[in-house]
């Protein structure tokens, strides 16, 4: 009898456990249909990207914690160094590093008036920019922020004063001939040896300021070795100092970073008492952490499953933004077959970019549209669609065949023959191994090319850097990051002798226009020159822009003043305004 009861109990237990697992397998967060946002917090973000999800101070609780997920550990604290220049480090340091300019959610540069009350070009020959530092601006130990900080941060990034510093970028800093302080160091005059169009990118949020007076404690700032020692010290030391609204309270390696309000901050006081950056290195684990209230804000790379999972969590709002990272297909012009423009033009015309979008990122958003520029993205001042009119990316096979026929190409069976009678060799198309979206893009390109009689072999690479820099490809798909300061980028990507011009495109006209655009003091003129160069390059069918990669933000509805910012500044650009709604 007892045995029977026991076995029945075991049976019931087994049934219950199985049911629990099955239920768990089916369990979302409940509520909401896939594809429909449960929260309405971001409802205004399309029309008012800079002010959506706003709440005035009197509608917010005093204090409170918000935890945001980030996907990488902070391995190096010097965001201006090559090693420390990663998105996550940029995000977490933004709260305690001063910077002159930042980028708002509508992709426009804005002056950080807490730090510099003005930054103006006072002369165009030589180009001179005068920065007025906020008189109240001090480091957390009370030391005034002054011209010495500008000078130190210029020296370590100009590639000349500190050869061993290994900065992320020297663009612009190397063109500065002098940085001089006056008014007790509160006015900084920067003179350029030759004009630099992207001057707002200097000392901006993507390469913010480190304190010179602390650097001087770790090396002689008048010697290359001293500068390098100080620069290295900033990289390996968790900052206890601050020049922003927040300061570091606690860092647990590989686990989290907590920032708290900086008592020495001279601007508007932050609403929250703590922001915790929780390191979750696997994005697919973020939705469950959000569902379980272990984090309240997510900012991952969107994937279909992840987006749908988040959209099903009650009381959570999410938003898809369009970022500055853009996907593209490039030809290697060193391949003799691809040196002929008609073949390139025909292949790009045969590619249906909209179909590519539909089969990849279009599965979770309908916002993504074919991109029409190599230097700007829609929403940026200066964006001009130079691609659509050429028919490239249209998927028009007949037009593509016409281009080839007019140029003397012939089709023999399934093989395209060039005007000299030689068959077009098989093209090797590369993409980063494991990237499913890019694999799909390669397959769609392969299908389009096969309709023109061109065979494409898809060969993944596990070292994109090696593949691009060695030119080990005929066709390749990858992404560039556009910038609110696009002129330097254009020079690096498209100019003949640039190391980043991997497909070896060369056009003296394009080179000249980009060079001119990079040395203008008139932004409108520079933009026009850049678009002219883009028009010429597009006609040469060298790189086909596909689309802007989407970004994704999600949070609980009670968190205010957090909004999407698809630039390198990210949603933390206004962290002192973040708060928790009352009630």
């Amino acid at each position: 009898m007892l045995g029977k009861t026991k076995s029945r109990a075991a049976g019931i237990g087994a049934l219950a456990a199985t049911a629990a697992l099955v239920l768990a397998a089916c369990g979302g967060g409940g509520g909401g249909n896939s594809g429909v946002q449960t929260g309405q917090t971001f409802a205004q973000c399309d029309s008012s990207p800079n002010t959506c999800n706003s709440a005035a101070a009197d509608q917010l609780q005093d204090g409170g914690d918000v935890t945001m997920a980030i996907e990488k550990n902070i391995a190096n604290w010097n965001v201006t160094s090559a090693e420390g220049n990663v998105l996550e480090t940029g995000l977490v340091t933004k709260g305690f590093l001063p910077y002159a300019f930042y980028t708002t959610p509508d992709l426009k540069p804005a002056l950080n008036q807490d730090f510099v009350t003005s930054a103006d070009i006072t002369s165009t020959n030589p180009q001179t920019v005068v920065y007025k530092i906020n008189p109240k601006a001090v480091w957390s130990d009370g030391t005034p922020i002054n011209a010495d900080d500008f000078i130190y941060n210029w020296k370590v990034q100009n590639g000349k004063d500190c050869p061993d510093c290994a900065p992320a970028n020297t663009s612009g800093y190397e063109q500065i001939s002098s940085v001089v302080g006056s008014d007790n160091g509160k006015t900084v005059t920067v003179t350029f040896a030759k004009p630099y169009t992207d001057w707002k990118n200097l000392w901006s949020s993507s390469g913010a300021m480190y304190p010179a007076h602390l650097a001087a404690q770790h090396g002689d700032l008048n010697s290359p070795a001293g500068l390098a020692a100080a620069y290295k010290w900033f990289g390996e030391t968790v900052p206890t100092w601050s020049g922003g609204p927040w300061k570091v309270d606690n860092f647990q390696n590989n686990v989290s970073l907590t920032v708290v309000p900086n008592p020495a901050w001279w601007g508007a006081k932050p609403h929250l008492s703590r922001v915790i950056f929780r390191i979750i290195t696997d994005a697919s684990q973020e939705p469950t952490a959000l569902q379980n209230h272990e984090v309240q804000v997510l900012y991952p790379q969107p994937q279909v499953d992840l987006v749908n999972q988040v959209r099903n969590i009650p009381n959570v709002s999410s938003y898809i933004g369009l970022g500055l990272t853009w996907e593209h297909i490039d030809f290697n012009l060193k391949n003799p077959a691809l040196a002929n423009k008609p073949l390139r033009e025909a292949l790009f015309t045969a590619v249906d970019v909209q179909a590519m979008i539909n089969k990849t990122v279009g599965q979770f958003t309908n916002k993504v549209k074919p991109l029409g520029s190599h230097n700007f993205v829609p929403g940026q001042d200066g964006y001009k669609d130079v691609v659509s009119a050429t028919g490239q990316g249209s998927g028009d096979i007949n037009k593509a065949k016409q281009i080839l026929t007019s140029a003397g190409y012939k089709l023999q069976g399934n093989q395209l023959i060039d005007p000299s009678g030689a068959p077009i060799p098989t093209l090797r198309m590369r993409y980063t191994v494991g990237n499913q979206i890019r694999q799909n893009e390669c397959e769609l390109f392969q299908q389009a090319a096969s309709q023109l009689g061109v065979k494409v072999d898809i060969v993944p690479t596990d070292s994109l850097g090696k593949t691009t820099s060695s030119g080990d490809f005929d066709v390749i798909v990858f992404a560039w990051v556009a910038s609110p300061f696009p002129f330097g980028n254009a020079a690096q990507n498209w100019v003949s002798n640039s190391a980043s011009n991997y497909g070896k495109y060369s056009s003296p006209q394009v080179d000249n226009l980009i060079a001119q655009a990079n040395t203008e003091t008139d932004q409108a003129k520079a933009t026009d020159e850049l678009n002219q160069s883009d028009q010429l390059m597009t006609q040469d069918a060298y790189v086909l822009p596909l689309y802007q990669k989407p970004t994704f933000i999600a949070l609980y509805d009670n968190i205010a003043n957090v909004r999407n910012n698809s630039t390198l500044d990210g949603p933390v650009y206004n962290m002192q305004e973040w708060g928790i709604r009352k009630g």
Partner: protein
Amino acid sequence: MLAFALRRLLVSVPILVLSTFLVFVMVSLSANPLDPLITRNPPPPPQTLAAEAHRLHLDQPLMERYWNWITGIFRGDFGPSVNSTMNIGHEILSRFGVTFRLIFLAMIIALILAIVVGAVSAVKQYSKLDYTATFFGFLFLSMPAFWLAVLLKQAGISINNSTGGQVFYTIGASSIYVQGGFWAHLGDVLGHMILPTISLALISYASWSRFQRGSMLEVLNSDYVRLARAKGLPSGVVMRRHALRNALIPLTTVTALDLASIISGAVVTEKVFQWQGAGSFLLDAISQSDVYAVEAWLLISATFVILFNLVADLLYGVLDPRIRHA
């Protein structure tokens, strides 16, 4: 016994060296640690890339790099990481500490469960209890570790939602801030440990319980157990001293041999539950092409596996005197 142990350890050294060499060559040739820098937009200046290549010894021939690494280990130097601020030796030891906390607990739970369930299943062969245990054994055996972990997470969240409290956590080994004293902290640590430990334990339990059941059945049908019963020894004594003890001998070996697969299970579990242990260390190192970090991980984990197997062999002798005499 001591001579046997020393002999076994000496044989292991060339195996270790060979495996580290093969992995070093494979990782070095297949990946480029400078890739993340080269593919940046805008890219760093050439002198930055050159300095980084020099720091990571990429300007040295492959054999020379390997030789410097292997000899450096004797000085406690595991080589430079792609993260210049990370000391590989220091980092990996703390990470293995986290992993072994997880593995140790999971193994203890899995072993206790496997021994009890396996023994009871054997004693009650073909009963409903046996069938139920068999069903769950095969269920967990056939479930991918990743999927089981995800299901447990969802189950934990469902329980949290239904109780309105925060009993289970899905990421990390503890909360960053815990209100309250010792008991609150203990509850928080347990809340973080339960799901990953169960997740890892159930996978090992599944195979071990089947093994224990088979082993126990074999022993129960042996002549010496029949003789013990015929001599009129109480059933409990027969089970404990004669049957169970002998049935544990094969399980000891299986447990030791399974350590490598438990470590790989821990890699998955750590990833899902975001425990920053040796598993996530390896995954990060591979994704960053951090050759020296991958090498250090391999060296240490292989050493542990070898030592564990040795301990199992020695334990075998303790459990079975015939081995000692042999």
